[in-house]
């Protein structure tokens, strides 16, 4: 069987599960229990009206970013960037999952978990550009945000607080994706930017393509440091053991000077 056929069959079965969960009156929320690869296959065949008619909590991150962007935009539904059922679920992760999904008051100000060794923090925060900015919160995995650009599902950033996260990407790769966003105008008119903690994002094996020998910090300063808006680096979003759950599309304020993100509107009601 040619590869194209299993992709089509796989798409159909994955779509069936998604649509079945949103249609099913016994189901109150839908969790993607794994990211990995493949969400983009189904974007053009999702029934966005079905999801809008049956609004439910939709939770996931990483590859699931593609679905968040698409559902947020085309079903006009707040979805949740947060841990999958196989994540490590530390106390911090559990606390913010409860706040985001179970409580109807806004999450309020969030920052990284307390450090046991202040001199060598496990989750260091760094202000790349100081300042305070407000806007709707949007964002997700940088690779998926970059790869959905030019499609009907691409991210809208104007006037928004944009967060980006990734894992196991070398600085040249992060540079390439951030440059893609910059050239596409995604930083024009953005209110503020958060670059999350990025584990294993250091230069590794030499490849002909990795001609940028810079660190991740240098790449971020070079691209995000030139923006005229507040920029914070290191928030525990996405691929970290301690992980925030963030509602996409709600009002938020980034204080890049203090290193906090205030979620001012609940994602659930």
């Amino acid at each position, binding site marked *: 069987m040619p590869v194209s056929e299993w992709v089509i069959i796989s798409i159909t079965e*994955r779509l069936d599960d998604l649509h079945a969960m949103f249609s099913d009156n*016994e189901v109150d*929320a839908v969790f993607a229990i794994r990211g990995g690869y493949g969400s983009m296959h189904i974007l053009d065949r999702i029934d966005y009206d079905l999801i809008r008619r049956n609004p439910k909590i939709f939770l996931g991150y990483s590859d699931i970013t593609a679905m968040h962007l698409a559902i947020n935009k085309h079903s006009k539904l707040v979805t949740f960037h947060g841990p999958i059922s196989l994540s490590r679920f530390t106390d911090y992760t559990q606390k913010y999952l409860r706040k985001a999904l179970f409580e109807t008051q806004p999450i309020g100000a969030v920052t990284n978990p307390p450090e046991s060794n202040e001199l060598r923090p496990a989750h260091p925060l760094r202000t790349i550009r100081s300042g305070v900015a407000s806007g709707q919160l949007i964002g997700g995995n940088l690779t998926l945000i970059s790869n959905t650009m030019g499609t009907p599902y691409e991210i809208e950033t104007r006037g928004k607080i944009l967060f980006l996260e990734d894992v196991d990407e070398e600085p040249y790769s992060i540079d390439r994706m951030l440059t893609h966003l910059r050239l596409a105008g995604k930083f024009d008119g953005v209110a503020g930017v958060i670059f999350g903690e990025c584990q294993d994002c250091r230069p590794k094996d030499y490849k002909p393509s990795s001609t940028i020998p810079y660190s991740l910090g240098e790449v971020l300063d070079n691209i995000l440091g030139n923006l005229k808006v507040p920029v914070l680096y290191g928030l525990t979003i996405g691929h970290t053991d301690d992980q925030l759950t963030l509602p996409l599309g709600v009002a938020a304020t980034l204080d890049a000077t203090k290193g906090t993100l205030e979620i001012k509107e609940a994602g659930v009601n």
Partner: protein
Amino acid sequence: MDDRRTFLASFSIGMASMLAIPRLSLAAAASDALLHPKALRAGDTVGLITPATYVSDPDRIALAERTIRHFGLRMKMGKNAGKRMGDYFDHRAS
């Protein structure tokens, strides 16, 4: 003429939207009228799906179940969530 008509049309739309602003609730204005789903409560059912990579390992599925139960929730597994990619070949052939 066309330009002016277009200008007048957009002007009146502009006026209409300005007049409409006070009628929007603050929450709707802040969130650009996005729908908000209902909060979870203990005893609610969560549908688990794998829209990207599959999860076929029973121990990983058990871990997902443990997580859902920890939050006082019930789970419903997607019909196809546990299938490996390879199963799609068999499924189609049978």
